[in-house]
């Protein structure tokens, strides 16, 4: 599988979750694990550009696919990706644990709907749990990300 543009060999353990593979085999610990049953969305990554929950996939299922994690959005000291920048400007994060999942969901949302309606924003972020912000600042961040992307 390709992860953030780099080819990696599959894990040897067939039952290894994609989330564990990314975090513990590839060292991409930005993908977080909040529930391991596919509800919280902390582990969201892009699989061929679409948001998926990496805790609900085995790593071997990602063979032949392109995986993008939060580390793949803006390299090292490069400027933040517009979605990351918008979360910063709008105080769209507090503890930051759910944040990579939200960011990847919103990147996926804006790829599908570059100019989303309020309803589409609501739906786009309604698969991720945040316990800190109450979501208001995340909604603002999505609107800001649309502006920054234009």
């Amino acid at each position, binding site marked *: 599988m390709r992860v953030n543009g780099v080819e990696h060999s599959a894990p040897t353990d067939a039952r290894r979750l994609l989330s564990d593979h990314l975090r513990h085999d590839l060292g991409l610990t930005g993908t977080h694990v909040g529930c391991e049953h596919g509800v919280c969305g902390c582990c969201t990554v892009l699989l061929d550009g679409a948001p998926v929950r990496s805790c609900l996939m085995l790593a071997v299922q990602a063979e032949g696919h392109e995986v993008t994690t939060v580390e793949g959005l803006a390299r090292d000291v490069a400027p933040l990706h517009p979605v990351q920048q918008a979360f*910063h400007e709008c105080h769209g994060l507090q503890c930051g644990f759910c944040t990579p999942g939200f960011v990847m969901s919103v990147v996926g949302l804006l790829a599908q709907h570059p100019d989303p309606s309020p309803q589409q924003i609501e739906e786009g972020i309604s698969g991720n749990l945040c*316990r800190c912000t*109450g979501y208001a600042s995340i909604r603002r961040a999505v609107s800001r990300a649309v502006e920054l992307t234009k």
Partner: protein
Amino acid sequence: MTTRWFGAPVQRVEDDRLLRGKGRFTDDLGEGALECCFVRSPYAHARITSIDVSAARAMPGVVAVYTAADLPFGGVDLPLLIPHPNLTHGRTQRCLASERVRYAGEAVAFVIAESRYIAEDAAELVQVDYEPLPVVITPEVALKAEHLVHDDVPGNVAAEMTQEVGDVDAAMRAAPHRKRLRFRYERGAASPMEGRAVWARWSAGERTLTVYDSTQSPTSIRGGLAVLFGLPESNVEVIAPDVGGGFGPKIMLFYPDELLVPYAAMQLGRPVKWTEDRQEHFTAVNQERGQVHEVEVGFDGEGRVLALGDDFIHDGGAYTPYGIILPIISAAQLPGPYRIPSYRVRFRDMYTNATPTSPYRGAGRPHACFVMERTLDAIAAELGLDRVEVRRRNLIQRDEFPYEVGVLWQDGNTVVYDSGDYPALLDRALAMLGPKPAGDHVGMGVAVYVEGTGVGPYEGAHVQVLVSGKVVAATGIPSQGQAHATVWAQVVADELGVDVRDVEVTGGDTRRFPWGVGTFASRGAVTAGNAMHVAARIVADRAKQIASDHLEAAPEDLELVGGQVRVKGSPDRGIPLAAVAVLSNPVRYAFGGGTEAATQFTAKAREGPPLHDGEQPGLEATGYYSPPGSAWASGCHAAYVRVDPKTFRLEILRYVVVHDCGRVINPLVLQGQIEGGVAQGIGGAFYERLAYDADGQLRNASFMEFLMPYATEIPRIEIDHLETPSPLNPLGVKGAGEAGVIPVGAVLASAIEDAMGVSITEMPLSPLKLYELSAT
């Protein structure tokens, strides 16, 4: 011109790494460590008849399996954190249960293996035989005392306490109107997105234990580990790295893993890491809020409360590690912002066969607020008066501060409100709320609350200007998302006249600052914030002292502005703060960074030895702040809701908050705290319910069934601030972390009652609950 950072909406300095996926949460660290899994009791109450770990130990990849019998501290009760004379029957659990389990989820064995996958497989091979015992699952059942949680605790009562202000019996007899009410509030769960995690490594050569812990109190963990393992505190380092939300339960100590992981690392000579999974978080991490209140209130025909009596039972859970702080807070906070001439409160802290309780955001207050506000609504209904008017007639007025309530507070003092303007909160909230929207099944709710914040005993801070001119600051308490690194930097930057981005703050790392208490009780801004202010001011004074010799001006004529120490009124007569830092440390050997200016053959600005008596090298200082009492924040929430008459779906049409936490350090951060608090309040009031059955099994221990709100459930929150500074601390601040959650249950209950015309006396609600209420 002086830039003032305090009060500005400074964007957070901690965001960058978190947004890039470079955060350092405990499970992100410690790659290559051994991994662990607990064996936990499936029964809420049972006798253990045998434990057989031989098959697990024999499994390839398993490094160790511990039961209580394997531990030198296996027979030791874990500490009772907050003793109190009324806690006559305090009981704490042991690290691993060996004879009896008292809640489903109690730890019985601990498996350590080369990977988590192997540890989980091996845990399934541990054979524990149980003899189930009768289960005591609610405080009401506990009160019946048909069965005991602890054989030696009669009546399941851990503690009983009665307090009285005035003469309630006489005032009640004399009151023109009396009413008896019963209110029930169920347990809730904090559910931070990051569960708990601990990673420990032991350096045998240096005899140093290093522990990374997703805790709200690394300094306390360090003290406890040092005692348990017989190490000097200086040989124990505890770090709370990035912590993915806390909301209270991460301040407990000790959870079993906090002892077992370091112990295993020391025994095995290898780093060991344990990361909780979500399912075990639901049963192994402390919960809160279960209380049942029996209220009698006496009032006059105008709706003024003359006497209030409350007798409540508190669901303490299976053990009382946190003492009786929660019912003490409920008892203290129940009168809220209202003048109650005669008040008597009695509580009994009951043992139940459920997860132990300790503070969860709000900590005793949401339920107390619910009881008081529901009581006022009942008075209004009884007299046919407007609910707002009844509140207005009972509110403490702005000229009555300091206002003494007279009951015990959680810091050992009695409750004294330091400042506030409660009528203004109410007026402003109602003005914001505006007229009631048209339509059927629409209701209005309102609640006013106070919150004792910033409790002691103290926090400290260390501030240092480096020879680069950059500033580093550290405090003992960690952040769980409250933007400490930003707000402390604002406080320090103001005192030192530097840019906020030039101040780097570390919290919750005992290597950087070993003293302190923890992040809880909305106390960070008050305690650590003021300690930062104190330390930075000492540094500023010292900088002026050093610079005065070089600028040939008196220290009092100097100011710190723009990274310089300069003469007031003469901006060109100044010296960079970096140069002052160099001069603060006389050196023999220049080591770069401009330090040649502080060597022995350079021109001296003053006579005498390089360091005068009492002087210390370095432009640094440590400062502490110890509050004389709590700073009492307050607020008013009001809402319009609509309840669908067929599906009982709740629609929050408008939700307004007017909040007073004294002087605001960062409005952006404060807004986030309020919005997040209200969202948790809405979740706890209408969506989240811990569904324990009669056998003590939590039937919904997953996010599939425990319905934490998504964005779709949380409306826009409109917020305004009132600022009545606290007279108790130099910054005039009060805490803000918990406030948002406190009145939400009361507001929604009031609004739903108004919309549906049914009596609401319980929390949490749900569409099903409303259906049941409307059907009766």
